[in-house]
């Protein structure tokens, strides 16, 4: 089972969600689909249809990844909102 590390700003939208979620899947997409079953609506916050949102970054074991990236059973997947300035 992989561990998905979610940002605080995302966890705050879903009562009961935690920053570290242990989920099943062989790709980033499968992990997030599994997570969406547990946290309904989470997929829509991270992706528009089949695409990651433009300012959402995913890393698998520290390496940049996308929805299709394969994950091992003990992978650590970080979901990180892009750093942006101004405002």
């Amino acid at each position, binding site marked *: 089972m992989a561990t998905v590390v979610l940002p605080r700003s995302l966890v705050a939208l879903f009562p009961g969600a935690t920053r570290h979620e242990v989920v099943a899947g062989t790709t980033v997409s499968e992990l997030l689909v599994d997570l969406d079953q547990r946290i309904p609506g989470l997929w*829509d*916050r*991270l992706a528009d249809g089949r695409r990651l949102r433009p300012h959402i970054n995913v890393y698998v074991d520290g390496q940049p990844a996308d929805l299709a990236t394969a994950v091992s059973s003990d992978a650590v997947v970080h979901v990180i909102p892009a750093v942006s300035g101004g405002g």
Partner: protein
Amino acid sequence: MNRSTRALLLVGTAKGAFLLESDAGRTNWSLRGPLCEGWPIHDLIVEPATGDLLAAGGSPWFGPAVWRSADLGATWTQSSAGLSYGDDAEPVKTVWSLAVAPDRAILAGVEPAGLFRSTDAGATWQHVEGLTNHPSRPTWQPGAGGLILHTIVPHPADADRTWVGISAVGVFETRDGGATWEPRNRGVRADFIPGPPPETGHCVHKFAAAAGEPETLYQQNHCGVYRSDDGGLGWTEITGALPSEFGFGLVTHPRDPATAWVIPLSRPEEGRYMPDGSAAVWRTHDRGASWIRSADGLPQENAYLGVLREAFARDALDPVGLAFGTSTGQLWHSRDGGVRWDLISRDLPQIWAVEALVLDA
């Protein structure tokens, strides 16, 4: 006046929603917020059947969503399920406007411009494809704020009829529940386009129906203020003595169909602020035949304030309370129909939306 009456102002800003609360006197206000996790909020409304609050917005990271609170803002849920034009289309960026139809369906206007409908309290959304499929769609061009569907006016009794406003495209009406739409821009100027006014390509800024007269519509446009007496089939310019034809906010009286308020701003190329740095709200009591300037309490010099389209609202009390928020975070309120104004919050983020709500306990 009911002693237990509570007056609320719902404020959407670039950095979350805020709620201000007072009693029916509307003199002293307390403020709560930021709500909605600090998301940019473009519109806030009250769902009449439930009293729930609905907020429309979009996060730069997490996309568009419609938020719902059943406890006056203490807790919120959010959803965007179905708020998409499809995997191969441009993503929906944010939700700009909300309205509740007489059949209790919730309507959401989004960017890029389109309309979505929910019949399950906002849990899921269906694209109103008839509007997107209008033959003029390939010609739609964005206004300065983007290609946005910013105004939704449901007919108060007929769920098949709805008017929407899109910048910079114009007003459309459906009479068949959204299956087909027709432009409603005849009589409106589009001075930024050479030649005669087109059928679409108009820069509507805001419009609202008159109390008790669903066919009477008042419109603030990029190119003037207008009134229609036939549901938008034709518009008559009523800019008259207003100091500028340009502005965004417009509200209609809750009971008198002849009364409306606007906030003129200097022309687009002149800064889009209160003309001459002198703040004022203008009102008509005769359907736009004449206008009265109200500035009591408002700063009369060095006040280069801007007010965006959704940041002007009125309540349903008597006398009518009005509130407008500025692009620099000041919230002004009048409890006498717009004659005298008080600053009730000074340091909010950029204000995008104001809604006034009255609760009788």
